[in-house]
């Protein structure tokens, strides 16, 4: 099969799978509804209970899952290629810790009133993630002509611990309710009940995905070695910058929408590589679609498994992802 055909088939198969999961997931829940009745155009929307449950009550949450899952999985692929390390995750470089610090401050200071109609927590968490990105990026560029991936990695890991310490310190001083709200946020939550949060997160994610579109072939070369990529005409420095900034932006937006949902960014890319191989022109789109399908499926489990109790979706992905990650570590070694 030619390379062009493999790319086309990958887009189609994984695209159809993702759309399929997103259409089926809203049918599952306390009230069972039918897809046929949802799209029955003979009944006006105001009288179509199934359509209302589908579009108003459940679809926003499913789309949030798709957006978050797709961003985290695709960012994972990009960062793994950039760091030449298949064990990197979207949270390795400190973005999520920055977001958590921002969210925690908003929750603790009780900024529930919000800013310009948007609630404060996602804004604070997005700002926190951008702050972390700026610090890590600044450090990795200092004293280097390009972007030092070593400094990137070490600065990210250090920042993660540092921000976690700040979060624990503020938690220690806070009262029980505030602490619980922060802990709950850290577990990841896709409880989105309107389209407004989606609209807020979509632009940065769209911008990142536009950058992802130009990256795959360059990432193939870059993941072999900087030197061979450069000798083949890849602008190594600008590619590294674009990869880091776009992956961080998508991660920051995803975390501000759904919280730091773990393991998507590593489990999905690895599963996809087992299926399609290592070529990033296949891995990146397949992971974006696969991440959407995986998180939407996990979220469906999280809201139905112990219904009416809702298991935090980050707990579900971690319970599935943790053992899988350990298996990856010992596989083929």
């Amino acid at each position: 099969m030619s390379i062009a055909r493999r790319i086309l088939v990958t887009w189609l198969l994984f695209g159809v799978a993702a759309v399929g999961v997103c259409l089926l997931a809203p049918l599952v829940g306390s009230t069972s509804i039918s897809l046929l009745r949802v799209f029955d155009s003979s009944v006006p929307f105001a009288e179509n209970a199934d359509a209302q449950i589908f579009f108003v009550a459940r679809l926003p949450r499913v789309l949030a899952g798709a957006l978050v899952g797709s961003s985290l999985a695709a960012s994972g692929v990009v960062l793994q290629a950039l760091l030449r390390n298949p064990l990197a995750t979207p949270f390795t470089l400190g973005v999520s810790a920055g977001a958590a610090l921002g969210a925690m401050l908003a929750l603790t200071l009780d900024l529930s009133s919000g800013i310009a109609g948007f609630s404060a927590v996602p804004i604070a968490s997005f700002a926190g993630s951008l702050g972390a990105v700026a610090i890590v990026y600044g450090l990795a560029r200092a004293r280097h002509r390009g972007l030092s991936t070593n400094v990137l990695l070490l600065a990210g890991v250090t920042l993660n611990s540092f921000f976690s310490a700040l979060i624990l310190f503020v938690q220690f001083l806070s009262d029980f309710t505030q602490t619980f709200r922060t802990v709950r946020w850290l577990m990841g939550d896709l409880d989105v009940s309107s389209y407004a949060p989606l609209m807020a997160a979509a632009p940065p994610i769209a911008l990142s995905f536009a950058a992802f579109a130009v990256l795959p072939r360059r990432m193939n070369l870059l993941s072999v070695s900087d030197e061979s990529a450069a000798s083949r005409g890849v602008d190594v420095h600008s590619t590294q910058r674009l990869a880091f900034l776009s992956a961080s932006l998508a991660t920051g937006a995803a975390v501000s929408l759904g919280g730091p949902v773990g393991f998507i960014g590593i489990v999905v890319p690895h599963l996809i590589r087992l299926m399609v191989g290592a070529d990033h022109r296949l891995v990146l789109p397949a992971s974006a679609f696969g991440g959407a399908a995986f998180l939407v499926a996990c979220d469906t489990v999280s809201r139905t498994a112990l219904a009416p109790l809702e298991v935090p979706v980050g707990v579900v992905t971690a319970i599935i992802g943790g053992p899988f990650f350990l298996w990856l570590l010992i596989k083929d070694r």
Partner: protein
Amino acid sequence: MTDSGLAANRISFAYGSRARAGQDSSAEVLDDVSAFVPRGGLVGILGPNGSGKTTLLRLLAGLMRPSSGRIVLDGVDLHTIPRSTVARRMAMVPQETQLAFDYTVLEMATMGRYPHLGAFEIEGPEDLAIAREALTATGTHHLASRLFNTLSGGEKQRVVIAGALAQRPDILLLDEPTASLDLAYQLEIRSILQKLNRERGLTIVVSTHDLNFAASLCRELVLLHQGRVLAAGATGSMLEPALIRKLYGVDVDITANPRTGHVTVIPVARAHEAPRT
């Protein structure tokens, strides 16, 4: 044409900030180095560890800019030529290739087509044919569907050379191509390079610290010592005991091998330990 080829014209280079260059010449890795690789040539850059071989090779490949002096390709300053144009003319084989991801051998060879394709262009049948032909030229076509990471060191090196050939360059630069290979693989790489030079007219530049590898492969040598050119010229005239003693600090016996006709260098002792004659 006398300037047809790749030339280093009085280049100096220091790692670290470029602002520092020129102030402290002791920090320089290369100091006023000139070298010329004629079209169709087979040139070795020979020197001990730390003499600046790899740096010179990277500068010749245009991967870094010299702090002073110029690299000139067929009479044109290399840094005025767009990177993708350079990549269609010159290919580089790094010393060792370690992969974090499981690319197949064919994928590794096909990546060499990068400089020939537009931003969103996908390799077509012609590109795949070129990549497969490059694998054949290095005797690795039977490995095409294998994962690169499962190959032996010698097979990996040949696949990386195939990837470079898929770029369809006129000039191939290799950094210590046999440094981590055992004897049989060294001979194999040597015969592949000789064949490429002879049959395709490929210009080849290799950096190496291995005297006998250089002696049996290269027609011309540039001897590099502490970032300066110690001597340069035809291989036969470079392999003189006095020069080798200066280059490596080792006393050697040099004999012509009766079976191959190549000059063979046998280290005898560290120069300071050598008995006075």
